[in-house]
């Protein structure tokens, strides 16, 4: 125990080390605070939905109530969906800044709505977020390099290595203790703010410990890299340069991950989303140029439950309008599935790279734990799709049987959230 205390005192007396550990704590705390501020901003935006929607829908209900036309209600009413941040979202904001977490849809064709984005400043998103995962993946390795590059070479250069080698047990236990202490200090600095943030956010213990385990494994990887380099018995300067170069290659550039990004984008071209939009528009607008009965036949073939609806009148009827929107969506279902599969293949390729490349792996795992990755974005889209189905069913019940749609019916519309949309 006493030797540990001695080592700890030595560590605390080395000013650069203390400064480095404090700096890392500060950066980690700043990232956690920033992440939590961003998440609370997003939660506040979600909390504001209800009143904004009440105002908007209320105004529509007022004039629709005069004629009680369900078509107008379905056409003009937007319904809100949202993707609430998970308790761990503060640690890895992932795609939540560039993909919408609030989206309004109406019962019209979904494929013309679901790819809409929210307002965001692209120049702010471009450099990437300053969140805890950034501190962990990008910055922590630099601190490992600063604290470990001279672990044994420093003793050699100071001329103490021979003396240490002469004490009973040799230099190895001393270095082991120092490694453990420095690693512990770095980990504590990086993880403590995260743990506090997770506790404040009410995160579950399991994902929190998984994230901490990831952080520890990632730190160990870099300590191992430092140990490997130090076995070459170069000077401290050469060690630092080599490790920094390794950091650059592994974390930032060269082979990976920018290179991999280019490769994946080439290997898996996503059947461009714009083509879905173009094809769906063609399908939808064609309905005006073909006999209306043809559209209804195609619609009823997919929705036999509504087939007992009365025939179309001579004039305009909204049920035809909504039918051709749905037929338009169904007409591009194949393209939609292919687009989706392409996105998933891209995500899978990046995940596979993460198995080989620690930086990418940790980043991917953290965004998965925080549910802020591409998969989470697609899952949100699935929930929007499920909700949209319920919306259509709800309005069709009025539209196809010409039931009047009054103020009270607006309140009966399905609400987003809950198990029904999962």
């Amino acid at each position, binding site marked *: 125990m006493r030797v540990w205390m001695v080592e700890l005192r030595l560590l605390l007396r080395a000013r650069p080390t203390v400064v480095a550990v404090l700096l890392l704590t500060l950066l980690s705390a700043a990232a956690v605070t920033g992440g939590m501020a961003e998440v609370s901003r997003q939660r506040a935006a979600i909390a504001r939905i209800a009143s904004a929607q009440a105002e908007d829908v209320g105004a529509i209900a007022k004039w629709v109530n005069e004629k009680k036309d369900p078509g107008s209600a379905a056409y003009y009413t937007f319904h809100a969906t949202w993707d609430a941040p998970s308790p761990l979202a503060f640690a890895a904001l992932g795609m939540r800044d560039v993909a919408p977490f609030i989206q309004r849809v109406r019962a019209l064709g979904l494929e013309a709505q679901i790819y809409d984005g929210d307002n965001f*400043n692209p120049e702010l*998103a471009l450099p990437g977020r300053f969140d805890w995962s950034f501190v962990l993946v990008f910055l922590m390795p630099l601190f490992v390099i600063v604290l470990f590059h001279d672990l044994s070479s420093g003793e050699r250069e100071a001329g103490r290595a021979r003396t240490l080698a002469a004490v009973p047990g040799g230099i190895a236990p001393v270095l082991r203790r120092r490694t453990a202490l420095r690693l512990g200090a770095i980990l504590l600095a990086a993880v403590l703010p995260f743990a506090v943030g997770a506790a404040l956010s009410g995160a579950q213990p399991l994902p929190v410990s998984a994230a901490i385990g990831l952080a520890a494994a990632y730190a160990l990887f870099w300590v191992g890299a430092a140990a490997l380099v130090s076995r070459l018995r170069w000077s401290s300067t050469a060690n630092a340069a080599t490790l920094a170069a390794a950091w650059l290659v592994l974390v930032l550039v060269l082979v990976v991950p920018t290179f991999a990004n280019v490769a994946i984008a080439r290997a898996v071209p996503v059947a461009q989303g*714009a083509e879905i939009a173009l094809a769906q528009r063609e399908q939808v607008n064609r309905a005006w140029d073909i006999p209306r009965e043809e559209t209804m036949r195609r619609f009823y073939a997919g929705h036999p439950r509504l087939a007992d609806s009365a025939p179309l009148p001579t004039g305009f009827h909204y049920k035809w309008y909504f039918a051709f929107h749905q037929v338009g969506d169904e007409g591009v279902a194949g393209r939609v599935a292919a687009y989706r599969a392409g996105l998933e293949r891209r995500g899978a*390729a990046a995940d596979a790279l993460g198995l080989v490349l620690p930086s990418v792996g940790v980043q991917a795992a953290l965004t998965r734990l925080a549910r802020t990755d591409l998969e989470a974005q697609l899952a949100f889209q699935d929930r929007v799709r499920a909700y949209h189905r319920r919306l259509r069913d709800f309005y069709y019940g009025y539209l196809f049987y010409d039931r009047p749609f009054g103020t009270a019916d607006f309140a009966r519309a399905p609400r987003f959230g809950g198990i029904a949309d999962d």
Partner: protein
Amino acid sequence: MSATRLIARDELRLMARNRVAVVAVLLILVLTLVAVLTAWSHQRDLAELRQRQQAAATAAFEAQPDRHPHRVVHYGQFLFRPLGALAAFDPGVDAFTGSSMFAEGHRQNTANFGDVRQGSSLTRFGQLTPAFVLQSVAPLLLIFLGFGAVVRETERGTLRSLLVGGAARGEVVRGKALALGLVAALVGLPAMAGLALIAGQAGVQALPVAAIALGYALYLALWVALVVLVSVLARRSRDALLVLLLAWAVTVVLVPRAAPEMAGRAIPLANRLETDVGVARDLRRVGDSHNPADPTFAAFKARTLARYGVARVEDLPVNYKGLLAVEGERITSRLFDRYAAAGFAAQERQNAAVAAAGLLSPAVAIRQLSMAAAGTNFAGHRRFLDQAEAYRFALVQKLNRLEADAVSYADDTAEDPGADRRKRVDAHHWTEMPRFAFAGPDGAELARGAVPGLSLLAGWLAAAVAALWFATRRLGVR
């Protein structure tokens, strides 16, 4: 031969003998070449794809059958943002903004299908482009090659013998800086050659290219000065390396991420739901087209009837529904413009706040400069959004006028079985509609966008050279 050149030659010879240094330089040369080639082919693929998609969308629009003009208002037009040639050098925000926009009546849509939402999380690690290599990687190479330049001599005591041998302090430092400057020029060469090739294409203007080249020359010169400065000031090689690595991590990695974070928090941006609800609210205030007794539209009706000197809309020589559509679109578009302008203003304030961080980090300054001159920054995207909105408004209004002139009010309001046929106008009208042609910015405008970044970098360089001059005078005094 002057002492400066002798010292520079010696330093270069020493670097050439250092195998790690040679490998590092070769690697970065290869990396730059790969970056130039991949970024260029990516830019060409994207530009071609968008051109093809725009052509397909335009062809589909013009191939529409006889239709009621209002159907065409809703059929709309897809607009694709063309990608300028300089995006091959610095794609800027291109991947973060949608590349296509749907222009239709009564709605202002977002630009969709940005690469960032279609790619894996890897996109957020950065993009392999010549700009990225020069901004982030090249300084690191200069640090590795140059951190020991002066401090090595101080540490080993060889500096003293150099000075005793008759070399002035200034000559030693200038010689070292010259050697590192030559390395910087070599490292920058392939990217600049790539830039020259990209600039050789049709439609690329000289001024922004010159601004980019000057910007990166200043940036790399600044890093040369900083590296030599730290090498002059440090007592030990290791300290020099660690201080420079820290400076690199803070200015190249940390500040460019932290500054936008703070700007985003200080200046909030209304989200789409709030904007849409706000537009709807204001619209109800201006006039409710669903309400027959609405004062705004009642007044419009009275005005129109008075202008034509008739008592009923049925007696108008033009289709009142078309006139109403024109008026409605005018009102909604004015609101859209107001909300869009507020959003743009907020984003510009955010970007200005980030640009101010160029005082803390030259990397921020070079990023802003590079994107601005390449036309791939927010202003470049906004140029597209503005032109897309102007096009949308012109197209919709032209179609609304067509409804007013070519469809009679009687037909437009009829519901008998033959009415549908009578409401339609001939298909040749669709080919007479304007086509979307994005007008790229002129070179002077792009170069003007680079001026703040250039001034910042020049200021940085002047400060670094001044500091180097002071430090040199005290070199070896300790």
